[in-house]
């Protein structure tokens, strides 16, 4: 049972999703506007946010950015199929995943489970703390430090970093990363990976135009290092 914060302006869609998610065993708090959802979130913690991008007043991107500014909880965007630019913008604003409306309850449920799994992290990691130059990764406590200072990573970003850094130097294709981090594999959207890599680099690299930790291997994908 997780606490789901649902933000959707259409009352019938909101009600439908609330019913569906509640039946899956979640406790759902539903809001019709971003402002009210943010106000609620400030007082009451949640495990996952399901966020419609097209909102009256403050739009979904801004809501996403505001949540990201304070918290690392996973965010799933609700988007329409033909809003490709919105998907990219939403991922850049910090969303972890997106689903296309209309969405069936079991699809949304699977995505929620996936982001919650990766935000909970892997429980049993043998080596507690690894050093990679200025970067320290504590796999047990799920804390990443740079020069000793903690780096605030969103759940997906953390999972991506953990996946890549587990085998430094190994090249991962976008599909492999989608499968490992997003549970999506070949039917996933590789822009999820690209957007997440960009956000991760912005937080851990000294120079995002010449990344050393998360490197692009043209034609193949990404790898951690070599340092």
């Amino acid at each position, binding site marked *: 049972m997780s606490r789901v914060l649902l933000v959707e302006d*259409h009352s*019938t*869609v909101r*009600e*439908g*999703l609330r*019913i*569906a998610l509640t*039946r899956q065993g979640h406790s759902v708090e539903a809001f019709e506007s971003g402002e009210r959802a943010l106000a609620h979130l400030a007082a009451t913690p949640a495990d996952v946010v399901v966020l419609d991008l097209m909102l009256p007043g403050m739009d979904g991107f801004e809501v996403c950015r505001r949540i990201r500014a304070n918290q690392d909880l996973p965010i799933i965007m609700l988007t*329409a*199929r*033909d809003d*490709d630019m919105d998907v990219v913008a939403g991922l850049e604003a910090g969303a972890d995943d997106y689903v296309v*409306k*209309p*969405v*069936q*309850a*079991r699809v*949304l449920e699977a995505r929620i489970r996936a982001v919650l799994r990766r935000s909970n992290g892997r429980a049993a990691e043998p080596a507690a703390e690894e050093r990679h130059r200025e970067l320290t990764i504590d796999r047990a406590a799920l804390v990443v430090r740079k020069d000793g200072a903690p780096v605030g990573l969103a759940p997906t970003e953390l999972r991506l970093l953990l996946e890549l850094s587990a085998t430094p130097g190994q090249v991962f*294709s*976008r*599909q492999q990363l989608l499968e490992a981090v997003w549970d999506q*594999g*070949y*039917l*996933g*959207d*590789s*822009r999820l990976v690209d957007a997440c890599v960009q956000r991760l680099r912005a937080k851990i690299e000294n120079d995002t135009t010449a990344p050393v930790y998360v490197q692009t291997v*043209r*034609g*193949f*994908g990404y790898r951690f290092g070599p340092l």
Partner: protein
Amino acid sequence: MTGWALGLRGRLLLAFAMLGLTTTALVAGVSYGQARTVILQKAQDAAVLSLVDEVSRLDPVRQLPPSPEQLNAIAAVVSTGPDAAVVAYGDGYAPSGLHPSELPQPLRAAVREGKVVWQRFSRDGTPTLAIGTQLMATRGDGSTEPTGIEVYRLHPLDDEQHSIEALAALAWSTGAASLVLAVLLALLAARGVLRPVRELGRAARRLGEGDLRTRAAVQGGDELAGVALIFNQTAERLERQVGELRRMEADARRFVADVSHELRTPLAAMTAVTDVLDEESEQLPGDAGKAARLVSQETKNLAQLVEDLIEISRFDAGTAALSRDDIDVAAAIRATLRSRGWTEEVTTSLPDGVVARLDPRRLDVIVANLVGNALRHGAAPVTVSLRAAAGQVEVAVSDSGPGLAPDVLAHVFDRFYKADSARSRSDGAGLGLAIALENARLHGGTLVAGNRSAHGAVFTLRVPTGDPA
């Protein structure tokens, strides 16, 4: 080469040149002939008059036959300047003059008959006028009688010849000049006529190539300008009508897109609760359970239809975009089959290691539509095979049904085309194959429907491998 094959320019040139030549030849020829006659006539008349006058003033011959001295004296009078004289009497002649054999014989015969005659002839290549008369003797009563002394003057026509030659040369040069002028005029006329013709041709070609805003320049008020005017009016009407058609089509498409988007919100609400209906339908009694399952199923179908409509609207609007990625095609096809529960039903021949730069979602849509279509309308076994060759990836989906009839084959990618008109909407292909085709084209590839030589239909997708990013 015939006149037609010469082209308009050639024919115009030829006509002008012929006209120029004919006119010049006619005018120059007639004037030359006329001038020549006049010149010669004048010279002739003057020479005849002067000889007759001079002869009449000679001292009368008192006795016959005259002595050679007398003949010489006559010859001396007659041969003035360049003129030579022949003075003859019977077989005798003036030794100081020329020999009578230099004269044309018919001339002598006429003079002997007492006439004053003249004749032009060529003497050693020089055109010469010979004038002859008999010397007259005056009788006591004042009448005259021929003496039998023949006096000839040979007057060279050099000057006249030169004048005539100059005239001929002038005629030739006038002819040449007028020919050049005619050709120049012909070129000018051809240009004047041909330029608008060429421009009209260019405009017609541009119009044919689809540039409906093309207009021809209208110059002056001649027939060509009339043609250009008609061309412009036609182009204008065509542009207006095509524009109208395009507007109507765009309106219709926008309407479909708008309606689809409007349907999306209620469908989003309904779709969210279809799982609830599915789960609860087991507990609902009788018809209520059936109704719940029906609503749930048709909601999913409707949602798919609306998504397809929105998808095809994006292709129509040209806003469909590719999101390419390097993918293992075999793995992607397996994922498509697995996610739809088709792995057991479909035979595959998918070699590993075929990597192409494609949009995974769109490849999934293509393969899912082709396999779904084969499973619905063909017969088992349905086979999916993959081949890579020469920068291309080829995916073939074949079934073992009766194949596609020729009239079906021609329309199989049409929207909402039903091979069997009795078949209901809900299990028809709808937009699936049309969307698959658009997706193939978006990748710069092709999707072809055909029949296998044995039994069954085969849909073959060919897309370029693409350059790795």
